[in-house]
């Protein structure tokens, strides 16, 4: 599918045919007040050599940091084969062609991806992906409003333990469509939502349950799911895909399971890359599939009885349903989904389980090392996955600056989003961290806290 731009002669010919003086004349009808000025903040284009040098210099400024930040994006080992395969010419495109069925390989890959996501989440059907975890929560909220037609409101219950950026993005995307989000408080000792704390829930469309939650804690998903269903609400699960190697899949939560499952796909073979691009995943029950946004690939037989893949249930989508489409998302994150599918194929169920178990063990090791330091303690009682909140006896920001000088990213400062916690830090260790890395972190933090040098030796 070659893209051949019009030659200057083509452009002159076309303009002459309609009697326009130049291309600018085509935009005459747009009033001057609505036109954008040249973008003052955007510099002139650089050539390949210069931009390459600039980006290398910027990358070098990041240095080789040792990161203990999670908070929604997680550093996992990515087998070299993942991107070696994803970078092959046959895969290395981020877009489904307009005549999607002409690209059977792409469709088959997406079909395999959907199957893997459905299997991982314990749900019946998954779509071809969404933009990222945060926007997939917004899409899930809109979908819940369509699917739960008996609910008399457009209110979604969202615990304060849900990722704060997800809540902000969901509000930004859905606010104009009349959705509102009631933020539910969390238990101060346990850092999880308790159903007994939920007031004024009547008539809400859905309850969001993030597992593990933003604090890394495990919510009581079975009780919350059953409670929400008893109130006539749907349950929107926001899950970390790696955690599903150990934790109960949302499809098995409570008596009926979650209704819509979304999450950030980045942990599945996508590098941190300073924050993106990532991809969101979404799965649901078959009964809600027509309310689901995004593309869906199906497997079928052609007229000769051979197996083939096709985009299906397209009447939900904007090229057919126009303004009443389930979403104005009409694409997927093709390249990242390709990497995730290869990652899941290489890791298998056992690999995901071992990655999850190793991440959990490293986080426990990290917590054990850090709470030995003066003035540091865990904020909440109860189990966590691969992330936890620590409380400090002094502000966290200067400590993080000190650690950064030692090449350590110490965690995510919660002062901005959760001031009620006092000085608090969200820390994460995945399977990529060694005992030596953890000792290095503990020693550096110990120096900043004025602790006497700690002897090595963990647990």
């Amino acid at each position, binding site marked *: 599918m070659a893209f051949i731009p019009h030659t200057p002669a083509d452009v002159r010919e076309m303009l002459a045919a309609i009697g326009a003086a130049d291309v600018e004349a085509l935009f005459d009808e747009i009033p001057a007040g609505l036109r954008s000025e040249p973008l003052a903040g955007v510099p002139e284009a650089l050539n390949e050599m210069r931009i390459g040098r600039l980006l290398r210099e910027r990358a070098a400024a990041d240095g080789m940091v040792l990161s203990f930040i999670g908070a929604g994006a997680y550093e996992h080992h990515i087998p070299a084969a993942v991107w070696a395969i994803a970078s092959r010419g046959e895969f290395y495109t981020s877009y489904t062609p307009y005549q999607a069925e002409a690209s059977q390989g792409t469709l088959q890959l997406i079909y395999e991806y959907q199957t893997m996501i459905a299997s991982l989440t314990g749900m019946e059907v998954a779509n071809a992906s969404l933009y990222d975890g945060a926007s997939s929560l917004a899409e899930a909220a809109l979908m819940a409003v369509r699917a739960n*037609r008996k609910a008399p409101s457009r209110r979604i219950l969202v615990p304060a333990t849900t990722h704060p950026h997800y809540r902000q993005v969901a509000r930004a995307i859905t606010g104009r469509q009349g959705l509102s989000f009631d933020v539910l408080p969390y238990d101060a000792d346990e850092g999880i939502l308790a159903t007994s704390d939920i007031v004024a829930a009547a008539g809400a469309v859905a309850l969001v349950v993030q597992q593990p939650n933003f604090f890394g804690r495990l919510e009581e998903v079975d009780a919350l799911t059953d409670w929400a269903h008893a109130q006539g609400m749907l349950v929107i699960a926001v899950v970390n895909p790696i955690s599903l190697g150990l934790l109960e899949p949302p499809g098995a939560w409570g008596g009926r399971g979650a209704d819509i499952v979304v999450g950030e796909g980045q942990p599945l073979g996508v590098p941190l890359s300073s924050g993106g691009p990532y991809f969101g995943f979404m799965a649901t029950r078959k009964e809600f599939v027509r309310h689901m946004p995004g593309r869906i690939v199906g497997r079928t037989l052609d007229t000769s009885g051979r197996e083939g893949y096709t985009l299906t249930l397209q*009447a939900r989508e904007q090229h*057919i349903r126009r303004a*009443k489409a389930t979403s104005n998302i009409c694409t997927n994150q093709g390249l990242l989904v390709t990497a995730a599918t290869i990652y899941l194929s290489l890791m298998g169920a056992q690999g995901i389980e071992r990655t999850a178990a190793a991440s959990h063990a490293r986080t426990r090791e990290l917590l054990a090392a850090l709470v030995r330091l003066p003035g540091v303690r865990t904020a909440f009682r109860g189990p966590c996955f691969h992330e936890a909140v620590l409380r400090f006896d002094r502000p966290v920001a200067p400590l993080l600056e000190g650690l950064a000088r030692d090449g350590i990213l110490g965690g995510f400062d919660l002062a901005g989003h959760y001031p009620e916690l006092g000085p608090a830090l969200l820390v994460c260790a995945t399977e990529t961290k060694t005992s030596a890395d953890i000792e290095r972190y503990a020693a550096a933090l110990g120096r900043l806290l004025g602790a006497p040098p700690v002897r090595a030796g963990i647990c």
Partner: protein
Amino acid sequence: MSTVPAELEYTDAHEWLRRLPDGTVEVGITDHAQHALGDLVYVELPEVGRAVKAGEACAVVESVKSASDVYSPVTGEVIACNPVLEKAPETINQDPYRAGWMMRVRVAPDAVAGAVLSAAQYTEFLDGKDD
């Protein structure tokens, strides 16, 4: 040539309505509409008990190539939907005026009558469209 039963009333959005002896109104889509849509694969019906206004989109018929809204020809309350259509939407293609009915509406007593066409007027309307 699509069939247009003489005893029914119609709208210019290709719904038919049948006034039942108990005063309620049965609603469906016309033979012309089902033919234009092609094989139906899914029908989304309103909740029973929902209040609908004349001209309001209250159902969706989806074929392999398109999805279209169905508008209520009257103002009132939905009192029943055709349960057959959930599993067998093709019933509308096979028998649009009888087995393929979509919903029954109890017309609100104070409702202003919506604009409906007689069979003759609807036939004339269809003829005009064919040009």
